């Protein structure tokens, strides 16, 4: 009897989850051609960048004392070592081979294989951005909801004004302001870095300022977005009905109104993730935080084709996954969409 109950539970769970897995699998399959097209665009654009990457990489002083034959031989060796002696189409497939085998090619600026360092840069960006992202939502949701519920009250006006101030402040300015206050004046937080070389400060204090900048620069927009979504939902007939039924205000707001307000919020979450990584260049630069933003900035400066291709592909895949997340999220919160898409 117990066993049957257990099996029944598993079956129900499977029946609930399987359509989602099938949907995700189906979407992933359809993403493949998109990834291929994006990769062709990225690769082509980067190959079209002016300048010979090998000649740009070699410091002319290095070859200054070589004879002409030695110099040509050296350049050709470098070209061969880095695979630039092959036609573009062959290089494209070799690049894909590298990507699929997690090699990602070679960085001419850092003079080492990309797979030796790309992982740590991705992780560093994830650490600071995901923490910032989660915190921003945890703070923005209650404030946005309260602001919508208390529309046009003093609370709402204060939140609106603060949001406008937050939207107007560029993140680099906010970062420098926080550094000035907490590191230079109060001297309670480190200026930059990820870890204390003297081993005195715990690692988490190094997250406080960069995460704060990410949270503060995201918060204002998010609050405005959630507030507006909630205001729209709160006008709906079913909310009035819920209240008329005598449901507690908390239940009306959080169970009925907020779930429906989540649909536009999910859209913003989906787009927020890649935007966070792309937009973290400034934060990572000011805090000497070795993440993807900083890496992309360096790669652009040195015209490091291998790194640029890899980073751009990473952003493209991240955006595609964010889209997938949006679609699955819609289905989770909206039964109408679930009925249409998840069968």
């Amino acid at each position: 009897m117990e066993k049957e109950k257990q099996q029944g539970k598993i079956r129900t769970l499977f029946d609930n989850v399987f359509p989602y897995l099938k949907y995700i699998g189906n979407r992933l399959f359809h993403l493949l051609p998109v990834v291929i097209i994006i990769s062709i665009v990225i690769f082509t654009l980067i190959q079209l960048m002016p300048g010979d990457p090998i000649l740009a990489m070699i410091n002319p002083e290095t070859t200054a004392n070589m004879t002409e034959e030695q110099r040509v031989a050296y350049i050709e060796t470098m070209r061969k070592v880095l695979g630039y002696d092959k036609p573009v189409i062959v290089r494209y497939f070799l690049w894909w081979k590298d990507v699929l085998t997690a090699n990602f090619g070679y960085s001419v600026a850092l003079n080492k294989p990309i797979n030796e360092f790309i992982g740590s840069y991705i992780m560093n960006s994830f650490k600071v951005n995901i923490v910032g992202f989660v915190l921003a939502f945890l703070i923005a949701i209650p404030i946005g909801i309260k602001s919508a519920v208390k529309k046009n009250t003093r609370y709402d006006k204060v939140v609106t004004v603060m949001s406008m101030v937050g939207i107007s402040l560029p993140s680099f300015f906010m970062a420098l302001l926080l550094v000035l206050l907490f590191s230079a004046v109060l001297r309670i937080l480190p200026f930059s870095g990820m870890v204390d070389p003297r081993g005195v400060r715990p690692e988490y204090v190094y997250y406080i300022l960069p995460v704060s900048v990410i949270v503060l620069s995201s918060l204002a927009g998010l609050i405005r977005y959630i507030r507006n979504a909630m205001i729209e939902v709160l006008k709906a007939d079913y909310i009035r009905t819920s209240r008329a039924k005598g449901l507690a205000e908390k239940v009306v707001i959080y169970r009925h109104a907020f779930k429906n307000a989540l649909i536009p919020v999910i859209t913003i979450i989906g787009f927020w993730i890649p935007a966070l990584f792309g937009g973290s260049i400034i934060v990572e630069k000011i805090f000497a935080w070795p993440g993807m933003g900083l890496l992309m900035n360096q790669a652009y400066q040195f015209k490091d084709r291998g790194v640029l291709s890899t980073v751009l592909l990473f952003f493209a895949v991240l955006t595609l996954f964010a889209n997938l997340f949006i679609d699955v999220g819609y289905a989770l919160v909206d039964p109408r969409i679930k009925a249409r898409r998840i069968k």
Partner: protein
Amino acid sequence: MKKKLLILGVLATLLFTGCGGSDKETAGTTEGKSKPTTFVMGSSNFNGDFYDGWTNSSYDANVRRLVWGGGLLSPTDKGELVLASFVESRTLTKSDPSMKSEDIWTFKIKDGMKFSNGDPLTAKDVKFTYDFYMDKEALGNTGGTSSLDQYIGKIDLDEENNTITFHLKQLIYTVDASAFSTFILDSTYISVGAEKDGITPQQWVKANMSAPIGYGPYKIDEYVESQYVKLSINENYQGNFEGEKPNIDRLIVQNVPEETKVTQLVTGEIDGITGLIKEENIDAAKGDQAIATNDYFRHGGGQITFHSDFGPVQLPEVRKAFAYEFDRIKFREIFLGKYGIASNAPYSRNMWMMYEDGEQLGTEGKFEKSLTSYDILDADGNWDEGANLKEAHKLLDEAAAKTDGLYAKLTKDADGTYLWEGKELTLNLAITAAWTDAVNLTLTKGVQEEFGIKINVDSMDWSIMANNLYGNAALSERKYHMFTGGTSYSIKYDPYANWSSTKILPYGKGSSTNSARYIGDEKLLDEIRFSNPSTEEGTASYKANWRKWIVEVNEDLPLLPLYSNNYYDAYTNRVENFETNALWQWPYAIVKARFK
């Protein structure tokens, strides 16, 4: 409410206990009030390439200097090279008595020398090192480069006597810097590692680039990518050229952002930063009583390079007229603020060849004063526009009056407009983004009209500009007559590499290290290059010929120097004897430094 307060209280406690670490040990201090043991040097980001031969980051190079200190010949604070402390003697002989200079150099290594890990340091390691870098194929396959094989032929190792003999292929005046400053590698450490991994020593070094073993003042204890390098004293270090050994127990070279580095120094988060060039940063450091500074002129600088084989700038008169048009004083004020000077040819004030006996390095000596300055100043020391204009027009008028060869292309019409091949005299200047404001504000439209040389300024990415400057761009794209850029001189300077006609390739056919594409007195370059480095006469000949060459370049002006930075190294005044200069970078100077 109580619950919220409790949560806030816990968070605040966590935060402040975590952040209060600086009480326990700030930069330059250790426990409580006892004598500091750690010096934290702020640096721009490093790649972690701590072996010579691969990438060229000067921040990596600083760590290499700490780990090795020098090669068979090691630097002094005056920019000279002397026998390293692990070398007992050097003998110079001639393979052929009729030769002008000694071409066989034998080094005797002291017995009992050790690397920082305890491995013996012998002549065998020296042989291993030179073989390592001279195996071009094995080195090239890992992306490494070396020019040692240009200078060195046969190498004889005498293990029994711990000596090594080099038969030089060519004896040039700067051979000691070019061939004998190479850091000696630990053959035991590298060979064992390479053998274990079944790869070549070059591949093994490439794979273990961040964990070198040297014999210098410090050894690396920990390296965290893009964050810091921690070093401690190497007990096996034999001392620098004065026999000095390090006094500061531990060093941390920490990556600090450009935006906050000075504030970090002032607040005591770090103990030192080097190479400050911006006026606001220098003034902030100088204005803080807890900060000491050393300043010196850069051993190099920024310039405009003319392509002397292209368009109107083929004529020296046009190059010089442009120099008079360009107000370098105004440019430097905009670009650098008040901390900088300009030279008048490719030299720096750190070169001994610039000075007579008794003259002070870093000052404007007699020889420098004798060169033509392309800024005519008025009685108050300001740029005299009228006088510069007069000089520029005099040069252009003289050139326009000539009709032979290229001069036929430069004419002056009835309105007084200068023409090149019948069109208004126009020069195209390629610059990178950082120069845009300063160049545009100096070469205003009014100035261009007045002087009669129109300037098209194009701002572009460095790699694109470099392709045009070095001649890698396709011929059909050739457009630019002038380029902005920077140069740093080596400790011993041989102008041949950047000024010989043999270093010019046809435009569009590859990288020319003679980027000015200037053909001057080739014989003079050879005289400078092949001066005998081991005699006083050789040194005197090097100096005399080098000066002749400087006069020539000053007169022909294939390159217009715009600035040489006045660098400031700033550090906590709790440290004494930390004397840096342009040729004695902080990794060398830190050896003598000590906490007060």
